């Protein structure tokens, strides 16, 4: 009884809808193919979506403050590229990774200062840095991928396993736990929600909203940079187009996971499950031999259905 009761309580969680969608979609795919529900396939799927999911953790925090970060793909790509350049120049792997993450930090500071100190709308500020990052990448690579020599130990980050679980997935899980705790249990997390819920009420209550915003943009870019470093470690090649267009998938993950672009609402866990759902669909499309061009359309449909359900459910709740 107790267990049943607790399971029923889960129904009230914001992540419930998208979790159900994830499970139903999994069952649906399994109906048509026996290859979906296997450990090796699920691990492969997880590794495939882990980068989007990691980036969505940063994105959802930005979205909860009422902002948006369009530059995550550029931060990711540029971080991978700078890491590669460092290896090329003969720096140690630690220095290379630190440089990659440093790029993310710089990216985030730029975004954050444009938004807080100058007062640019987040959409414009991050659209600008998106282009700048992308341009820099082409200038540096001249369009040619960079494949430097790297030590064996570095590739663990993107290619290794802990037991059956790929390392990127382990990193994802750790980040999910850490940021869920930050967002639900700490003062910083509370301030992030308050800033997005009603910025002027938060400011008048003593929340340093500008600092909160700066922090979430720095976190978002740095987390994306980490994704970029992992991506480079996986392919050991820094592509000039790496991360291109990924912001849309990352924003979609957050939205599917229940985040409201108006701010104040959303969760890290929801965003991660949202990314998982997108990854699952991509995998299903491949396994079922559906035209891969259809994947985008299906993902779009799922976004609309998931977010509509969420909106409708909230409206019912609100009306009693």
């Amino acid at each position, binding site marked *: 009884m107790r267990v049943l009761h607790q399971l029923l309580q889960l129904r009230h969680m914001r992540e419930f809808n998208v979790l159900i969608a994830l499970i139903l979609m999994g069952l649906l795919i399994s109906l048509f193919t026996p290859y979906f529900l296997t450990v090796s396939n699920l691990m492969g799927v997880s590794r495939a979506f882990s980068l989007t999911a990691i980036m969505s953790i940063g994105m959802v925090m930005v979205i909860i403050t009422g902002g948006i970060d369009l530059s995550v793909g550029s931060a990711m790509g540029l971080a991978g590229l700078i890491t590669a350049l460092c290896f090329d120049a003969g720096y140690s792997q630690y220095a290379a990774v630190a440089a990659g993450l440093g790029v993310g930090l710089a990216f985030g500071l730029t975004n954050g200062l444009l938004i807080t100190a100058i007062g640019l709308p987040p959409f414009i500020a991050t659209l600008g840095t998106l282009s700048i990052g992308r341009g820099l990448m082409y200038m540096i690579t001249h369009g040619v991928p960079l494949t430097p020599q790297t030590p064996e130990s570095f590739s663990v980050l993107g290619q290794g396993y802990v037991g059956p679980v790929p390392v990127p997935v382990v990193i994802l899980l750790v980040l999910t736990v850490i940021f869920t705790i930050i967002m639900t*249990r*700490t*003062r*910083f997390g*509370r*301030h992030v*929600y*308050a800033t997005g*819920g*009603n910025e*002027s*009420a*938060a*400011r*008048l*209550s*003593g*929340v*340093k909203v500008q600092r909160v915003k700066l922090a979430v943009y720095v976190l978002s870019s740095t987390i994306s940079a980490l994704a970029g470093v992992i991506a480079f470690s996986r392919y050991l090649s820094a592509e000039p187009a790496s991360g291109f267009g990924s912001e849309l998938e990352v924003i979609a993950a957050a939205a599917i996971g229940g985040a409201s672009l108006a701010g*104040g*609402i959303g969760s890290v866990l929801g965003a991660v499950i949202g990314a998982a759902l997108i990854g699952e669909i991509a995998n299903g499309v491949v396994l079922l031999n559906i035209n891969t061009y259809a994947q985008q359309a299906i993902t779009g449909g799922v976004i609309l259905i998931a977010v509509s359900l969420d909106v409708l459910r909230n409206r019912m*709740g*609100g*009306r*009693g």
Partner: protein
Amino acid sequence: MKPFLEMISISKTFPGVKALDHVDLHLNSGEVHVLAGENGAGKSTLMKIMTGVLRADPGGEIRIEGEPVVIKNPVHARSLGISIIYQELAVVNNLTVSENVFLAREPLRPTGLIDRAKMNADTRAVLSELGVDIDPEAMVGTLSVGQRQLIEIARAISYKSKLIIMDEPTASLSHHEASTLLRMSRKLASQGVGIVFISHKLEEIFEIADRVTVLRDGRTVDTRPVSEMTSDLLVRLMVDRELDQLFGHHTSHATAEVLMSVRNLTEKRVKDEGVFVRDVDFDLHRGEVLGFFGLVGAGRTEVMEMIFGSRPHTGEISINGKPARISSPSDAIEHGLGFVTEDRQSRGLVLGMSVRENFSLTHLSDYCSLDFVNRRKETAACADYIRALGIKTPSPEQKVLNLSGGNQQKVVLAKWAARRPRILIVDEPTRGIDIGAKAEVHSLLGSMAEEGMSIIVVSSDLPEILAISDRVIVLKEGRISGELTRENATQESVMLAATG
């Protein structure tokens, strides 16, 4: 006379709350019907059902001129001749006054374009009928809360409704504006319009009502003509206590020690609109309750926003004899200030958050070790304040959005009271609060002063200012126009300073 509208056995249940329990209400044409009752009694909910915003539980019935109707939505209600002025402002700030009055029914020229001239002229006509001087082409965002309220009233009047519901319309109006409104309402009633008037102000109720219905805990406790009603009876029906027990005597706790002094406080103007507040000088003593009075638009709120760092200013503020540089609310809070803002929904509360989260936002670090929030401590403290202030909510986890207006106001007070600032500025602290709770707020402010906190009270409610202040400062057109000790402060002397 057959009633224009009857509500029969209306109930409404929200999760965890029975807001209305078999309520009956009969409204006649041409009468002003006052709906009274404590915060959370169900007044607004009943009106939302009447205007189709909410659907009642099955079992009740609404009849208009004897015919049963199902009111589907606000547009439908309006087509049946019912319009409402909401408790919380519902104007669009980035449109002009006349665009607001004619929103969604703009007069068109044959070409299909909006007939601006007609819209402005009609708006000017309604406003002058109301006896107020507001430019139809002004942006609503630049107007005061009181002026915005008048825009809503103008809008309802211009609908030519048969029944106008006013949910605490005078809560944010000055005395002058309020009496204009009361006069307007009586005039509309004499022309055959039915008026439902919700108010927590006793004098006003007796001034305007033909009949009074009292709700308590979602039930109708009484309906009677105002001639058979007395203040004592009304208070007893509403809060089940005697009027003279409610308000205690005033004792001053003011000391000679100056806690904060303000010199040459002058607004740094970005745009040339609104009042220009300048050269404001005053001292605030430890333990003092300092009243700030002025007509709507005199600049009281602006002064407080400057002190609190949310409005650019020049001039000196010193606290405890030391100059204090305050350029943001968080600076002000670090210097020991707190600010209960007048506009609770847009500036006081994060509506989507729970009572607990709103409550603790001002002093979250009290419940934190490292950066982690101790939720048990936080909930316990919040529960204490819910009890102390009598906040009506099923639990600390209820979203503030779902509380009644007066209970939302109490949450704003609680979140600042719990922070225990050295100086607490309260701007219209009892707006929309019922009479029992008003007495509680007054005694809360009194006991904070007794503990040595200093309090600045801004209020348009002159009797309130006179009842709780140790000293009264009067503002007029952005400058201090008078300072009165408690002994010298009377209705007449304060009004004279505010207007003369």
